[in-house]
């Protein structure tokens, strides 16, 4: 089996985000920390579990792919430290927004002649929150796709997948897909592992294959981000101020007035 896992590097969004002068994207300051999109950690872990499960198939390989600027290679290293065999960096050296359709088009263009049996993505990127890239990759490649996957199992001698997807109110939709297929993985499907020290050391020496986004064939643009803004502060709420103790006292007074306590 050949597995491809799409991983995105996202900024840790605790703290203030500044919009650039043109209002077109976020400017990351030196102190911004970047990490792997959390949903993608679950996707990598699921690929590793599949590999463990079919350990009789010595040919199983897991590739991790990411589209982004040079710093993205750290996220690919993390994927390799978790256990992926190879990292593929589609280099796009601009700190700007890339639409999910464009991202999918780049990944599909890379993947199309590589005969992957399964392509895994996270259900959503924590920064742009589209929930689209996996489905677009599937459509471009003509593969079946299941989104928000919370359970999967290879069946029928490796020709099909039995899948459960999480829908509203915790209900699950059970379906069967032919391989090759695309799965978008929902958090909670597994417990992502911490990289072992030996894997971290191994990953350090492993090379990442880098290719320029411009050399990949892409499809015509579909939608654009015109501008970013800060949401208007809500009119109904207000912040309690003062010291910690004063805030606690104010809160208790409010709770008492509203007869909660």
């Amino acid at each position, binding site marked *: 089996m050949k597995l491809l896992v799409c991983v995105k590097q996202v900024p840790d969004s605790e*703290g203030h985000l500044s919009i650039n002068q043109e209002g077109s994207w976020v400017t990351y300051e030196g102190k911004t920390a970047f990490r792997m999109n959390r949903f993608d950690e679950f996707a990598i872990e699921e690929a590793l579990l599949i590999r463990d499960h079919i350990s009789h198939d010595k040919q199983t390989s897991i590739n991790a792919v990411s589209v982004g600027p040079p710093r993205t290679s750290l996220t690919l290293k993390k994927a390799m430290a978790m256990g992926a065999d190879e990292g593929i960096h589609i280099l796009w050296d601009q700190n700007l927004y890339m639409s999910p359709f464009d991202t999918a088009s780049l990944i599909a263009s890379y993947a199309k002649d590589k005969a992957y049996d399964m392509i895994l993505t996270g259900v959503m990127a924590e920064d742009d929150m589209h929930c689209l890239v996996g489905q677009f990759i599937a459509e471009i490649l003509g593969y079946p796709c299941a989104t928000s996957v919370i359970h999967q199992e290879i069946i029928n001698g490796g020709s099909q997948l039995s899948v459960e997807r999480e829908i*509203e*109110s915790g209900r699950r939709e059970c379906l069967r897909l*032919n391989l090759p297929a695309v799965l978008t993985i929902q958090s909670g499907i597994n417990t992502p592992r911490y990289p072992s020290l030996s894997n971290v050391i191994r990953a350090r020496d492993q090379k990442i294959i880098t290719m320029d986004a411009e050399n990949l064939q892409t499809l015509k643009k579909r939608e654009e981000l015109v501008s970013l803004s800060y949401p208007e502060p809500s009119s109904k709420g207000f912040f309690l101020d003062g010291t910690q103790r004063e805030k606690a006292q104010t809160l208790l007074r409010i709770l008492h007035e509203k007869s909660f306590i």
Partner: protein
Amino acid sequence: MKRQIAVIVEHTGNRILPVTYESLSFAMELGERLGLNLSVLILGNSIEAMAKQLAERTGSHVTGIKGAQLESYNGEAYKGAIVEILEAFDPSYICMPHTATGFDLAPRIAFFLNASCVTSVEKIRVREGNIRFIRSMFNGKLHAEMAPATAKAVLTILPGAWPSLEIHPGSKGSVHIIRTNFSPIASQTLEIKESRKEKLNLGDADVIISAGRGIRKPANLHLLEELAKIFPKSVLGSSKAACDLGWLGYQHQIGITGQTVSPRLYIACGISGAVQHISGMRGSQTIIGINSDPDASIFNAADYGIVEDLETFIPTLLEEFRHFSESS
């Protein structure tokens, strides 16, 4: 003929989901601004009664697409059954709720129709005559204005962002049912399983104290338990992230894939305020957010915001509560 704005209906067990009426409300608003005719599409196997109900409530034309393969949702079957009809209708916009079904289906249709796809739309804005769609990014910290770069657009509408459609007076609407025998080839939906989560009825609680990833470690749960004790009818809720980390069981999860609650008081502790969480608790009467990040979007939903580290704030609050109850 006037151009169309189409809404794809979401339903389950012969019941139209309330989020559908929100998407209809969105489509009415956009349709009125742009002079588009609303048309409603419903796919399924036994849809006649729902189609009639929709026609009466919207006063619009409802097209039912009927087939045994459409008994329950399957992305491939839905797409296969609908795209030719959409090509014939040629709507400028196709809308549906932003649910697990909506974000599964929308990109499939958009790809086929060479349309743009904008998910989780929460506002419409008109700028110099151009229509823009506003959606949240970075867990609600920023708003992005999106513009389709194509003639058609497929949109998913954020649950809770538009009110439910009022009954439309005047015309009674009309229904037309088309049969399809399109069968999916590469995927098959087998069944829908009800939630396996143990039942914990959060709906009955007066007060919900909710834990997010920001409690930082499970050992801090006791702070929330202590806080819960100061209210008579209270329970612990949680974000999905805290459940995924194994800190609380999934029966505590609040949000679109967990439970929807509307207690008298909701205290969100270390929860960032992602739309999927807010959707499940925005009906609470009073919302308090405790978060160390002043920019956290939970504060946009809260009545009272407290920017503090909960590890020190909650103990202070409990201490003050002891003084308070001794003196009163």
